């Protein structure tokens, strides 16, 4: 297995509040790595640090063997990261279709250079076709022309997932992809995510709250508690870990 992401000795604090303390974290190619932990454990912060939304105070982050510690989020995205947010971020006033167009055109701009943006007004045929493919893959057919802001919670999440996929990332990072969903939507989402992972050959990194989702998706499980990793490994082994049971699983 190749190591796609490797973070060493990360420290992150917001002012006086230490959120991550000496966190080292690996992501192997092809795995579905789920990070769990009680609310406030620092999962979202870990996401932010790895994706480049915020800089770490000390430590290092490698992506595909390159040091990306000092790189901004958009630069890490161009090196193969795609991510979603805990509360789905989409372009509210654009239609769902336009959201996808923007994502695809952005990828083309990164791949082919700035000039891919000029010389035409409407999106190119290939871009439109690709957007339509994504629409079908993720089941967004009914909602294409509506402003994305009016979509249901689940559709927003799906749209955001589709936008991330449009970037053709190597690593897909999803922060609580099923948060706020009904149980039936949730199992639907799990199916979609594992589908997508298989089809695109993605490496997944996600945080999750729901245990069914966790054990439905994870090939590796990491438990974060008070900003430190207390266990990491195969899901059934982590589940059996006494300390983990005590601080987290026992509560459920």
């Amino acid at each position, binding site marked *: 297995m190749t190591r796609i992401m490797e973070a060493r000795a990360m420290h992150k604090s917001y002012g006086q509040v230490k959120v991550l303390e000496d966190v080292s974290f690996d992501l192997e190619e092809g795995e579905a790595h789920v990070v769990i932990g009680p609310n406030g454990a620092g999962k979202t912060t870990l996401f932010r640090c790895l994706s480049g939304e915020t800089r770490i105070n000390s430590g290092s982050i490698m992506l595909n063997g390159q040091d990306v510690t000092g790189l901004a989020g*958009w630069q890490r995205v161009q090196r193969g990261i795609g991510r979603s947010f805990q509360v789905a971020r989409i372009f509210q006033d654009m239609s769902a279709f336009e959201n996808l167009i923007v994502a695809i055109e952005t990828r083309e701009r990164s791949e082919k250079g700035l000039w891919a943006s*000029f010389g035409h007004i*409407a999106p190119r045929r290939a871009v439109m076709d690709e957007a339509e493919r994504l629409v079908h893959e993720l089941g967004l057919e009914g909602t294409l022309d509506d402003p994305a802001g009016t979509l249901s919670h689940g559709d927003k999440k799906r749209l955001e997932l589709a936008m991330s996929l449009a970037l053709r990332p190597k690593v897909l990072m999803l922060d609580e992809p099923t948060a706020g969903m009904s149980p039936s939507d949730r199992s639907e989402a799990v199916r979609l995510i594992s589908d997508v992972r298989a089809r695109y050959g993605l490496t997944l990194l996600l945080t999750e709250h729901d245990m069914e989702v966790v054990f439905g998706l994870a090939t590796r499980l990491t438990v974060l508690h008070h900003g430190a990793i207390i266990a990491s490994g195969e899901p059934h082994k982590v589940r059996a870990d006494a300390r983990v049971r005590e601080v987290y699983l026992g509560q459920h």
Partner: protein
Amino acid sequence: MIDYRVRFRTNLVIAACGLAAFAVVPFVANSGLLFLAGLVAINIVFGLSWNFLFSGVGLLSFGHAMFFAGGAYGMALITRHVPEMPFLLALVLGAACGGLIALVFGVVALRRASGVYFAVLTLAFSELIHILITKTTFLGRNDGLTGIPRPVIELGFGTLNLTSATAYYYFIIIAMTLVAVMMWCFQNAPAGRLLQAIRQDQMRTAFLGTPIQGWQLTAFVISGTVAAFCGAVMVPFTQIASPEIAYWTVSTQPILFTLLGGAGQFWGPAVGAILFGAIDYGTRTMHGLSEITVGVLLLAVVLIIPGGLLGLLKRRRAAASKSARSETAGERTSETEAGK
């Protein structure tokens, strides 16, 4: 699904109708009204340049006068000191003055400030430029630069004499139409879509792999360049570049046009500028009445129809098309596409 071709054609027709309406003015109006119409045409694009920034990328500028004045003074200086320079090249250089101001300011300010803080910085910088103009002898201090001639353009196969106000008026409305159409195209092309994405959600756009600040700066420079082009085109028309055009009240104008006409629509500032011109004309004999009227109207628009006049129109149409949805399906697309 969005029909991009219909959208493009509709807006081209809107631009052509606007041009045609302005082209009729010299036949039906006196020289005073002609002069006003020329200024309104310039103001339309000035307003579009501001709204390109505000609604197009989400940057608020309270200092657009600095670009307008930059273009006007650039043009005036060139015409005075390098009279042999071809007119169109002078215009381009005048516009570049505004672009340069935007670049210098944007590089410094965009890194440090956003939102209202950014807006206040634009206001401060614009005031600085106003003061600089009134204190610099080279720029004519409080008197400005006067006696700017209108051009005679050499075309190779003949000359185009624009020295009369009417001839120059036609040049203005054609130039402004071209720039407006170019702006529409830019805003609806991939780069414009990306800028719109930045306005709606910076974080999301960054995590699609886009350097936000670079694009914001680009938009700022484009807006400044277009605003300066307006200033540069105005100077031979009024034949003067005076410090008033660098004053903060000029910065408020495109904001007023946009709020009146509707920020959410591409042609909103155009509608606002025309309305503003009409009010100016209707109240020209009574000093101060124009400001009061505009103030009251603005208050009314902001409180009663927050989307501006075009926003109101669009909502009406949307409501009408909803009720007619069962009857006709075909016509509706072209209606809702208009003005996007």
